[in-house]
């Protein structure tokens, strides 16, 4: 059984809000139960694929790109949605 208090701490999520989430552990268990079918797949000796894209580092010059400097005060955050 998954302990939501422990996971919440690891995930840096506020427990206060989690308490309002009703059957949180039940819903997490529902998902975990579904993914149990992974056990039916034979994966012994199979190399994992973590990334399907390019696996080479892309290098660039260690120079300042002026257009990527954030102008102070220009895009300060503001609440627009109430």
């Amino acid at each position, binding site marked *: 059984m998954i302990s939501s208090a422990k*996971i919440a701490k690891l995930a840096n*999520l506020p427990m206060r809000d989690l308490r309002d*989430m009703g059957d949180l552990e039940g819903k997490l268990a529902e998902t975990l139960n579904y993914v149990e079918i992974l056990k*039916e797949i034979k994966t012994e000796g*199979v190399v994992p694929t973590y990334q399907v894209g390019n696996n080479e580092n*892309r290098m660039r010059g260690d120079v300042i790109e002026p257009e990527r400097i954030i102008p102070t005060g220009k895009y300060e955050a503001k609440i627009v949605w109430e």
Partner: protein
Amino acid sequence: MGIEELNKKLNAFITLGEMARLRWGFGEVKVAVKDNFCTKGMLTTAASKILSNFIPPYDATVVEKVKKAGQIIIGKTNMDAFAHGSSTETSDYGVVKNPWDLTRVAGGSSGGSAAAVAAGMCDWALGSETAGSIRGPAAWCGVVGLKPTYGRVSRYGLIAMCSSTDCPGPIADSVEKVRRAYEIIKGVDPKDATTQEGKERQEGIGGRGGIKGLKIGLPKEYFMDSAQKRVNETVLEAARVLEKLGATLIEVKTMEPKYAIAVYTVIQRSEVSSNLARMDGVRFGLNREAFNEENMRRIMLGTHTLQSGYYDAYYKKAQQARTLIIKDFEKLFSRVDLLLSPTMPSVAPKIGVTSGQAMYGEMADVLSEASSLAGLPAISVPCGFVENLPVGMQLIGPKWNEELILKIAQEFEEKTDWHERKPNIAISG
């Protein structure tokens, strides 16, 4: 009806810029952008309250490319919060209504983008897909959606959900418009190390450049018994259109899609927990209390599957199974040129029917997950109607073969008129 009035009915946009109000000028192209792409100086929320105050200081690469092409960004479209869903019902800004039936969902997570296109609010829209988020809403809204090969389009400036499958792509009301948009956004980006110059397969299995002799595989498992029967039938009828044009239809066997659901769920939740760790209100946005329940559940599940002691059983196991999925596709593409199936196993459901189902999104996207995990390109095109609601057919191609699926989709479109049908609510061109 004006665009703002229409948006009140559909809730397709979270932000509508000044430009949206202007009348279309000759040759102007208006583009709607999903709200998880950073737009310089324009609110970017990813449909989450946690970013309700985030105005990015820079443009995503794809947004920059759209602007450089001289096209106009009219606003930011609604979506599932952080793209966590397949119906936009997890949006913190309300659900997007389907332009064909306002009591139904538009699909997700790029629901706002697909609805905006279907309702004629823009010329095309930028969406993003992690597994079904472009194809799904395109199918349910009766428009065309292209999910390119992973690595074909830059993710720089796209708010990350599941980094190993996230992929930007265009949605429009015709294959030609999708192709033009794709030409603009694709390409290697020094700011995204996963982008690369992929090469199209030179020699087809069956066809030599055209549809004649092309071998199209119909995966038996993708016409599911649990799917809506008439959706399956509609897609089979559409396949016969391609057969009449000279293609050969071949029934093929794939890995059961139910395994892809499990593999995708674990990988996605794991990457979500890692990617959303940066949302802490320190550098931008509000603090973590502002996440909604779906976001918190996904973060928690991913944290669980990455924990020491569980990592091998979940995360590593899923990544090994992913290798098998990729091999399964490689085997299929040694026999056929492309795969054809329904995009979604049903038409758009009523708003609210999915609430409380922890696995709804993953179940809905069952026919997109395997190809997304393998990074393959796919397109969804309108291919008919069931109960007056649009049905989408998807064509999945081998890696880097966008040209092939675009060409075949276009041939299908030229022989049919499904894409020309518009919902009554739509703004006419």
